[in-house]
């Protein structure tokens, strides 16, 4: 979750949303690409966090994927081991994240049904971005370290890899509309490829994030810090939506001349330095 926040921080559209709010704010956003991305990232974050807690032993309820009935647990575990818990993380996230969407029945052709279908699809895309891209790592441990015996296990992708993958999906997200029966979503423009399970889908074009709009949850970009030298999303040109930017000097009290070890508390001195900062008009 912390990592997803750091990832999301660079985006134009939800700069101030904190990790805990991310999921819940998601519903406030219009049904654009950004909402699609938010749902996917938060669903991926849940799979990731659950799998990690299972590995830490913090979460007692993690399943033993090979055990069929809980009463056979110990016998099954001794017979064939337990396997890893990415699968449990996936199933848990599916139940936990999707439950809100499935609370109500929606009439055909309704806006709420469309939103539900879109959210469910994007949640699944987020989960799959973690689950399907787990890597296999192996270790040889036969006689004299030879590969006559080899054991493999699942390695979770780093959250940054998940984020990068979802960012690509965000860029290539598909706009969708109801089919004739009003029960399913299909692509709006036939020139684009059909969205598969891993793709993100959305209903409307992105709202204007340049100006504040309480209805869509957009806070606007007035007063946001931007990077003068960057050409990307965080660059002043794009972020300030052509309104230009102000530059002012900021005195920064920093820690410096630090003695670093591999972790933890760092002994430093404090230094002062003056920095140019740009904010959008």
């Amino acid at each position, binding site marked *: 979750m912390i990592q997803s926040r750091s990832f999301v921080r660079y985006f134009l559209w939800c700069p101030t949303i904190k990790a805990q709010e991310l999921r819940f704010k998601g519903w406030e956003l219009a049904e654009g690409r950004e909402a699609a991305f938010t749902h996917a990232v938060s669903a991926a974050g849940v799979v990731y966090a659950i799998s990690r807690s299972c590995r830490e032993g913090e979460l007692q309820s993690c399943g033993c994927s090979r055990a069929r009935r809980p009463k056979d647990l110990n016998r099954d575990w001794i017979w064939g081991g337990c396997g890893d818990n990415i699968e449990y993380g996936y199933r848990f996230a599916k139940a936990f994240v999707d439950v809100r969407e499935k609370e109500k029945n929606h009439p055909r052709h309704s806006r709420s049904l469309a939103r539900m279908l879109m959210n469910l699809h994007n949640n699944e895309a987020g989960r799959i971005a973690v689950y399907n891209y787990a890597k296999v790592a192996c270790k040889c441990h036969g006689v004299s370290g030879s590969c006559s015996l*080899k054991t493999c296990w699942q390695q979770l992708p780093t959250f940054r890899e998940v984020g990068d993958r979802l960012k690509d999906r965000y860029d290539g997200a598909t706009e969708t509309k109801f089919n004739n029966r009003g029960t399913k979503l299909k692509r709006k423009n036939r020139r684009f490829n059909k969205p598969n399970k891993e793709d993100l889908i959305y209903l409307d074009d992105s709202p204007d994030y340049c100006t504040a709009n309480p209805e869509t949850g957009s806070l606007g970009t007035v007063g946001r810090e931007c990077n003068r030298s960057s050409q990307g999303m965080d660059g002043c040109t794009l972020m300030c939506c052509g309104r230009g930017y102000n530059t002012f000097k900021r005195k920064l009290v920093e820690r410096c001349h630090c003695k670093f070890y591999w972790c933890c508390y760092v002994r430093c001195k404090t230094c002062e330095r003056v920095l140019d900062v740009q904010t959008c008009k």
Partner: protein
Amino acid sequence: MCNGALFSAPAPSSTIVSIPINCIDYDHPVPKDKKAFIPRGNHSCAYVENLFDKSVETEKIEANQIVFSQWLPLPRDNHQLRMSRWFQSMLTVIQMDVVHNSKNPYPLGKNPKMQLECHLFYRNAEDDENDWKELASAVVERRLDCRIDENQKQDGDLYECDLLPFFELGSVHYDYYLINIRLPVSKRDDEMNKLGTVSGMTFITIFQNGGFTKVWFSLKTVFFPLTLSVLIWFWRRILQLSRPTNLLERTLFALGIILSIMNFPLEWITLLANAPFVLLINDIREGAFYAMLLSFWLIFAGEHMMDSQERNKLSSYWKHLLAVIVGCLALLIFDMCERGVQLTNPFYSIWATTTGTNLALAFIILAGIAACGYFLFLSYMIFRVFRNISTKTASLPQMSSVRRKFYSGLIFRFKFLMLTTLLCAALTVIFFIISQVSEGQWKWGDDGISLEYSSAFLAGVYGMWNMYVFALLSLYAPSHKTMGVAESLDETREEEVQLTQIPSESSALASMITKSTVD
């Protein structure tokens, strides 16, 4: 015979992938010996969830105070699992998580030395929850080897690090194991402190599956009496002969003895007593069997050479056997250096130091050279045998019927063994490749596979070579029927004669060869 169990057998080994809890030792500068840091339960340690947590800065927690701790196995379905003696052995490797930090960068390309202060504790389920006893402890060094894609070098990006060997236990005798690791910061050795920024680590523990152990034990328990009885029967047949035993018979007998030693189900004692040495003994037994099998092929080919040279004694094969002995000795010394030392210090790894790595590589290369030498020798000998066979087959029609039967018997026997050996070797290689490929490509959603290739491979190869020696012993035992005059044999007994005839007293063979040249 064990087919039912074989097909339901699980993979040979399983893994527990676990992330240690970052316990904090608040008493750090005051040394408290052998204190166990427990990650969960009623006596769990004080910990931080994340090493970059704000409290680490505010409480001035130093690197020396962090104890990475994990209790194996992990809980599942609200139930604390227990290790089992059926697991036989367990080994753990460490995956380090090194994060890029531009202020404290990882020294790329320098493979920094990392010190690990390791403690391993054990406890049984019925013991008091706080009563962890120390199994082993040591301060060891490992070399980090990490890489990163230069294009993606932003703060917070993870490096890709090689797995570090951690410990290996030859027996899993207790219910619970507790791992405690500290990465001490040294005031003197500054090179040791340049590790970059570590965000955590992952333990990967590999152990043999109980189900596989059960199948394996039953295989051994069934094969042991079978091979032993056929060996006794074989040797009694030989002793009934009026002549002294020849080299090939003695070699076959030795092969049978070593196979019986390998089959002896010594492992049963691990269920009763803590016997970590069984792992080493198994390595040695297996190695001895393969060394004997290789030597047997050499001697078998040599004894079927059908030239005028007098052999029939071990000393005439010393050059050929040297390759086998050197290769096996190199592997034995290597194994003793790794698993032998691990009996006293489970954290020891020959790969951890540069000299150790070079030494280990030297032994493996030596063994490789010996193996090449062996196969050159063997191929050359087999080539010569086939050349002699073709000249003999050409002159077969001109021979008298006794000698014709004798030679065609020899040729048939040699070809038969060649064919079975090639078949067995080919099957071993094919099985090995299939199991390696299936293991490497294993992915989620492959639950449908009912047959575990790896365990089928191991059990299949084991059973196949057992049956191979079994067949050799029973087919090549001398007939107890008197050989009689060859001419009186009717057609139905011919094949039996060909199979059971001895390569003969070499003097007789030599005299026949001289006779054939006279012919």
